[in-house]
């Protein structure tokens, strides 16, 4: 059964079109991440689902019920905000129970739910404190608790970890994942951090300019991005694109613009459809799919190049170089020492690259 169904959703602010004819179906118990740069409409979409924004056109179904014009509280959702949005004058307990009291739930029931939620989030010892006396991570736990006590099917997270420092972020990220495994609720999670998206999601929807560019599980998004934008957005350090043409004789061959002694044979790359000769393309290679040294010799494509800049990052080292005048970078093991000016042999498997059309930047 589908937990959330969005049909032909549109939203305009006066003249500005924010969301246009958006369709999205989320299954029960699924963890969906809306990922995109700021201004892409991901938070707007979440607010529409929550009912905090009135849609211009289209319908929203939650648990099979049309809730397009329902108040947020009647939709069966709980929401967690970026700035925590705790009620500062109430204790943690007050924050958790205020909505329930207001809904007229019996005292014992409220007690039970607050206890359950605070145990689950390990905030029992903080119940009597005011939000001002909590750290950022604790505040966000309380905010999650406030969604939890509502005992709802769907949780919405609006960049919940953005205000936390890096260490807390990773801790709380794992906790959210655990929470999801325990509760098995539907969760929609908005973020601009691709690592959060990759680690948490069952499916990721990469958004740009109010459109969903690709909706797939993290693995597919990473390995087979649907277009150049998604490819560049996912992965850190990002994918590098080489400009060139594909010559299709008996087998497809990549010709780099600007001239390169190599002309890689792409015959084990899975093209979506047969490709015409002399198609202008972007060849995208992830820095981590490039290998060096002895291993490189075994790769279908291998060549040597000169090191220009070395960026050690501890576990790995990022190496910048050039092929035929175009920037190229790759990751090598942090223990291998390379110096500027060295010549190294590198190689990659064409099965692991991504090729995009030069003009519409769609995957080929």
């Amino acid at each position, binding site marked *: 059964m589908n937990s959330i169904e969005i049909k032909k959703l549109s939203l305009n602010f006066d003249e500005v079109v924010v969301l246009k004819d958006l369709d999205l179906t989320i299954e029960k118990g699924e963890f969906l991440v809306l990922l995109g740069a700021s201004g892409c409409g991901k938070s707007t979409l979440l607010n529409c689902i929550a009912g905090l924004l009135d849609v211009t056109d289209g319908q929203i179904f939650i648990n099979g019920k049309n809730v397009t014009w329902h108040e947020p*509280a009647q939709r069966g959702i709980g929401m967690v905000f*970026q700035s925590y949005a*705790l009620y500062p*004058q109430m204790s943690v307990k007050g924050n958790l129970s205020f909505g329930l009291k207001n809904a007229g739930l019996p005292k014992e029931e409220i007690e039970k739910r607050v206890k359950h939620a605070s145990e689950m989030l390990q905030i029992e010892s903080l119940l009597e404190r005011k939000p001002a006396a909590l750290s950022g991570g604790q505040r966000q736990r309380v905010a999650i608790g406030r969604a939890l006590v509502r005992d709802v099917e769907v949780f919405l997270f609006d960049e919940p970890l953005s205000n936390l420092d890096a260490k807390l972020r990773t801790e709380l990220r794992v906790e959210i994942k655990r929470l999801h495994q325990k509760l098995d609720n539907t969760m929609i999670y908005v973020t601009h951090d691709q690592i959060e998206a990759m680690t948490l999601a069952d499916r990721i929807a990469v958004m740009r300019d109010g459109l969903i560019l690709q909706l797939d599980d993290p693995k597919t998004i990473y390995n087979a991005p649907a277009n150049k934008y998604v490819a560049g957005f996912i992965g850190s350090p990002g994918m590098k694109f080489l400009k060139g043409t594909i010559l299709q004789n008996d087998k497809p061959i990549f010709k780099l613009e600007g001239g390169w002694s190599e002309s890689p044979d792409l015959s084990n790359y899975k093209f979506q459809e047969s490709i015409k000769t002399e198609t202008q393309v972007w060849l995208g290679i992830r820095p981590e799919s490039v290998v060096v040294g002895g291993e490189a010799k075994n790769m279908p494509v291998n060549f040597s190049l000169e090191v220009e800049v070395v960026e050690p990052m501890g576990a790995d080292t990022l190496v910048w170089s050039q092929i035929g005048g175009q920037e190229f970078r790759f990751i090598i093991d942090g223990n291998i020492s390379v110096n500027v000016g060295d010549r190294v042999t590198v190689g990659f498997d064409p099965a692991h690259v991504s090729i995009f059309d030069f003009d519409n930047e769609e995957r080929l």
Partner: protein
Amino acid sequence: MPKQALPERFFIGSILLAFVMLVLATVGIKSQILENAQFLILLPSLLLVIWMGVKTGRLEIFTNRLRKYATGWLIAALTSAMVWSFAQKGTQLALPILKDLRKVWNTFEPFALFATAVFILFCLVLLVIGTRDSDLERPGYIESSLVNNLSSKIAAVPMAFTAFGIFIMATLWTVYHSFTNSRLLPKSELIGFGQYERLWSSDRWYVSIENLAIFGVGSLVFSLTIGFMLAALLDQKTRFENTFRTIFLYPFALSFIITGLIWQWILNPDHGVQKVVRSLGFDNFVFNPLYNADIVIYGVLIAALWQGTGFIMCLMLAGLRGIDQEIWMAARVDGIPMWKTYLRIVIPMMRPVFITTLVIISAGIIKVYDLIVAQTSGGPGLASEVPAKYVFDYMFGHQNLAQGFAGSTMMLVSVLIVLIPLAYLGFGRRKHG
């Protein structure tokens, strides 16, 4: 650090309390219980400070740095005192050379007097309560607030002079002369509580106080509620918000004299509302609050609200805008109705704004004078008199300075009683929050 600062604060608090008691006693409110209470607080706090000093092995008052600063302040005080004494006739007679410079010295006299008082005060405060945090060799609460960043404190000295001169000296002078029999000119022979007896046996004063109470409660309650409601309404993404804001704020740009005059006309039975309604055909319609001694103060209240509410609205609107939109979203997701969100979440969050507003309104209430003069001149009869008008009339109308001073001293005392705890509530708790 708080180890030392706490008894210091306690001590200062008890000194302030003692001062309030003194003021109360001066104006005739005496009570054995109060005095005992004051003694019971002051003595242990003094002992506590001394004990802290003794326990740490040395009285921190005599540390070097402290002595240096105290000496500095003392020298400054002495210099100022010398300047002052040169301005005195006796000194000038004894040293004939100074005679030619008499004018210059005389110009400096008031400044020098101020300076002496301020410097001695600084010095006393330093010596008496400038203890230090002995374990950490860190300046104590008072010392650090007086001595740290000395240059900025020196820069503040002119301001301190003005403040001291106006708020302390002038006040003390007024309080002193309220115990005299001054008529047109101030006299300095004390006559005791005669002026206060006269004040409290005067009907006019009672009417004034009653009016002030009605006016005060009315304008406090209504300008807060109406101001907040208007702000809440304007905060609903209203179209033409700027226009409305301007319209509501516009009366605030007028002086009370103009407001009073406008409302005198509006409420005048021969020209204003009554006339308009009567000419619509309701011949027996009566609405003339300014001519009815029982309700005249409400007529004034309407004018004051008309003028002041817009400003309160602007303050409240600023407060509302300062509240994170996500709080509203969270409340909506929680299913909390809008009025309850305002009442239980937003208003408590706007506490600082409310306190600022409260102080502004209260100050406006106490000093209301020009509105009354323009609108009713205190009439009909004495029905719309207020204390400020009482004071002003006695000082400049009836040539009875001392009676006016007695009235103003009473006003000061009531303001202190109301505002000191309020200010403490509002601004004192901030630091801990």
